[in-house]
């Protein structure tokens, strides 16, 4: 399974990332292009597979309509 992490400090090849519980790991970011602090990336086996766009990372606000939430 892949998990979304937040970039804390970015380098050219790797970035230090943090999960929602505060745990940090170094992630290879070569496959998703340049990232910056605050970006959200989807990570599997130590490698970022996708850079979440700000809109996607923030997600729509929950409403009573499932289509709107998801």
């Amino acid at each position, binding site marked *: *399974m*892949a998990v*979304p992490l937040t970039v804390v400090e970015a380098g050219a090849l790797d970035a230090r990332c943090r999960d*929602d519980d505060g745990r940090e790991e170094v992630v*290879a970011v*070569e*496959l*998703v*292009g340049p990232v910056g602090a605050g970006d959200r990336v*989807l990570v*599997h*086996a*130590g*490698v970022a*597979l*996708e850079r*979440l766009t700000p809109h*996607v990372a923030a*997600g729509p606000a*929950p409403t*009573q309509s*499932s*289509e709107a*939430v*998801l």
Partner: protein
Amino acid sequence: MRFVDEYRDPDLARALSAKISTLAEPGRHYKLMEVCGGHTHAIYRFGVHDFLPETVELVHGPGCPVCVIPMGRVDDGMAIAERNPDVILTCFGDMMRVPGSNGSFLDGNARGADIRMVYSPLDALRIARQNPDRQVIFYAIGFETTAPSTALTLVRAKREGITNFSVFCNHVTIIPAIKAILDSPDLRLDAFVGPGHVSTVIGCRPYEFIPRDHGKPLVCAGFEPLDVLQAIEMIMRQLADGRAEVENQYARIVPWDGNRQALATMADVFELRPYFEWRGLGFISHSALKLSQRYADFDTELRYDVPGVRVADPKSCQCGEVLKGVLKPWECKVFGTACTPETPIGTCMVSSEGACAAYYNYGRYAKKRLPLHV
């Protein structure tokens, strides 16, 4: 928790459940296959099936990476580790417990082999840097979610000129497995819940043959309970409308065209094998990856003598039928008795994404509860 709670809202789950019930045609039985082991885990963990009408059946597919590794490939890894004292074999945690005919990698360690668990193939490469007098092998498994990490690791190994690192490649690809399922006479399916994170890499286009050639919908789905329920609702809506399309419920993560950089890296590092044995599905042509000629120096199978003996599953094990969705986990003769997560006989009981382990850990309790049909 942000990004989690909103996808686990019970009121929205009940609303989706009611929509699914409304869309179900009276008297019709629906069989939907969730291809990905992550979905199987989520379905049992969150009790998603409790929110479905009895006529909507979820069939578990072959998308658990550990589960589809045949015993012969476990034996191959073990043989390399035990016959070559300078080898450090590395693999993901789940793989350590997969039984081969000569025990698991944990048993190999007990006999003196050096087999280490890693979180990432990049960790294996780090072990190689730290141990220049040893040969470090990464036992690679997984679908297109995991193959990019192996590919990137090999790119780095080549770039750095590391010579004591190689990969024993068991990566498989999801599309041939779906084709094998579609061609199986054992199973009549109405639609697929498509894998989420595999699709992050390959995108949605590779699934377009399913509605075009087989007339069945596929909806790529996320892994929270509302993701799965909404994907099922989208499938049921297609079936009710008489449509068959590829749709993307997981658009917040999955780009329609996938990750082009990851695909390009994989194309550089890997090439398709002519055929590969899958546990339960047998030999499937062009369904697995091996290292390309450009990376032949890093190919464990070219560096070492690999037994390559085909080993039949234990007679009592019915993982093959479970992986094809023909049997439910609890219908296996040894489920929960001789075969448990502590003492697995088959691979489906090893990984948390295996249908048997997921059902053992969560589903058997849910079965005792009253059904929650809305």
